[in-house]
């Protein structure tokens, strides 16, 4: 996907009047959200509020759901990624995804990282790419002597970092993370959180988490989603994390983050 000059170079991606439907069900309505570059933006909210749906809109993962229908714009470098001339595969190369459960390929650690680059026709030094990607994911020191070992031989936390290394290897601009620590123990989770903070120096990160303490700990901005009477998700409040968790503007946000509902 070609870069387009953007009037808002400060921002990595922007949702404008985004609506998502699954068949007749209006899943998410009128989301306007601007994600700042090199920051961590967390999407939080109760189950069914549409936070994962919105995340998936950012790299056209909803295209894979036959009944899903998108209205509105998602602007990446000023270009709507849903325009007919945009190749979703190219979108997903620039906007990577890390999933809830670590999902390494049943291949060696090396091949797990090198795979994405290989299929994208990478011409450079593959060894170097694998090393820098694993370093970027804070995994290199733990696996440098066993790069031929199967990805499944690693612990859950290591597997998730391997998946992050795999995402980094295609040099994305944005990394989307869908509950990246929900399958991990608390210490492995904290390691991923610390890694996210480091990665934000080079990448933009958008993370969906059902753990709002995690959002509070790691993110720079937080978007709180909730549902209306018709169970349609919407964005209730979006603010710098420090503000949202100390002095939220909305009573509904406050009730949620103080555990009064949700």
């Amino acid at each position, binding site marked *: 996907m070609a870069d387009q000059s953007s009037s808002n170079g400060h921002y990595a991606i922007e949702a404008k009047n985004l609506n998502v439907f699954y068949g007749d069900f209006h899943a998410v309505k009128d989301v306007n959200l601007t994600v700042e570059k090199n920051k961590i933006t967390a999407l939080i909210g109760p189950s069914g509020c549409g936070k994962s749906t919105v995340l998936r809109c950012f790299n056209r993962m909803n295209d894979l759901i036959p009944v899903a229908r998108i209205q509105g714009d998602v602007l990446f470098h000023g270009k709507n990624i849903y325009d007919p001339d945009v190749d979703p595969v190219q979108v997903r190369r620039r906007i990577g995804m890390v999933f809830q459960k670590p999902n390494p390929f049943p291949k060696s650690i090396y091949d797990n990282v090198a795979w994405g680059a290989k299929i994208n026709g990478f011409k450079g030094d593959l060894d170097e790419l694998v090393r820098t990607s694993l370093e970027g994911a*804070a995994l290199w020191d733990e696996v440098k002597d066993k790069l031929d070992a199967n990805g499944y031989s690693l612990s859950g936390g290591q597997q998730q970092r391997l998946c992050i290394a795999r995402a980094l290897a295609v040099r994305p601009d944005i990394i989307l993370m869908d509950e990246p620590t929900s399958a991990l123990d608390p*210490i492995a989770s*904290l*390691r991923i*959180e*610390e890694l996210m*903070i480091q990665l934000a120096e080079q990448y933009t990160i958008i993370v969906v988490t059902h753990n709002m*303490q995690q959002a*509070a*700990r790691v993110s720079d901005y937080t978007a709180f989603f909730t549902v209306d009477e018709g169970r349609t998700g919407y964005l209730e409040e979006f603010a710098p*994390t*420090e503000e949202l*968790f*100390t002095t939220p503007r909305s009573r509904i946000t406050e009730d949620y983050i103080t555990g009064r509902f949700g």
Partner: protein
Amino acid sequence: MSPRKSFEQRLEQLRSTLIAMSELVEQELSVAMDALERKDVELAQEVFAMDERVNKLRYDNERTALLLISTQQPMARDARFILASLFMNVILERMGDKAKSVAKAIPYILQRPNLTISPELRQMAEMGHEMLHDAMQAYAAEDVTLALQVAARDDDVDQLYGETFFSVLARMAKTKKPDKVEAIYELMRIARDLERFADYATDLAERVDFMVTGQLAEVNVDEWEEVRASAEEERAALAALKAARKAQKAEAESTSDT
């Protein structure tokens, strides 16, 4: 790599800002005492500007602590550290106010340019200054032994305060110029401020004890006994003063008779 490196950095930020604030309060007291001894109003004014910076740091620290509590779920020693730092933050701000209060007296004292500044005041200020410094050293090094030593020194300051109080009271009683009374009263007030300054340093030390051990207790517990003894001392001193005055009067009368 610590899994909570960024959290630790923010804790460190709170610690270093609090220490910087205490250094400013130390400086505030030194400048206030210099201004008092030199009867220098311009220098006294500098103390006000310094106190404004202390007040600003207080709010900065409160903001940092609020963010840490709201976003980082501090537990155990981290929670005690934040709570202790918050208390110490307020105490330091009040210590700054005490230093400012010394500076506030200077324009009144200037009305009597020849008024002697009691040397005990300097001594009290130096003791308070040292107690503050050591309490913050104890905070930085998480050193309970040093903290308890600071608290133990409060009695020395209290004793010096008692002596200063009576010597100033005697000066007030002796003076034949009513307009001088106000300036002397300011000295008494300064002595009180310096005594409170040292009390606050003790409070800081107590917070360090809590931060490290989790113990929630006052270090100098026999306060009622102290109050009672001090009131008793005061009564005795006033009686002695009264007797001295009576004797002075009787002597004056007998001289005029002869």
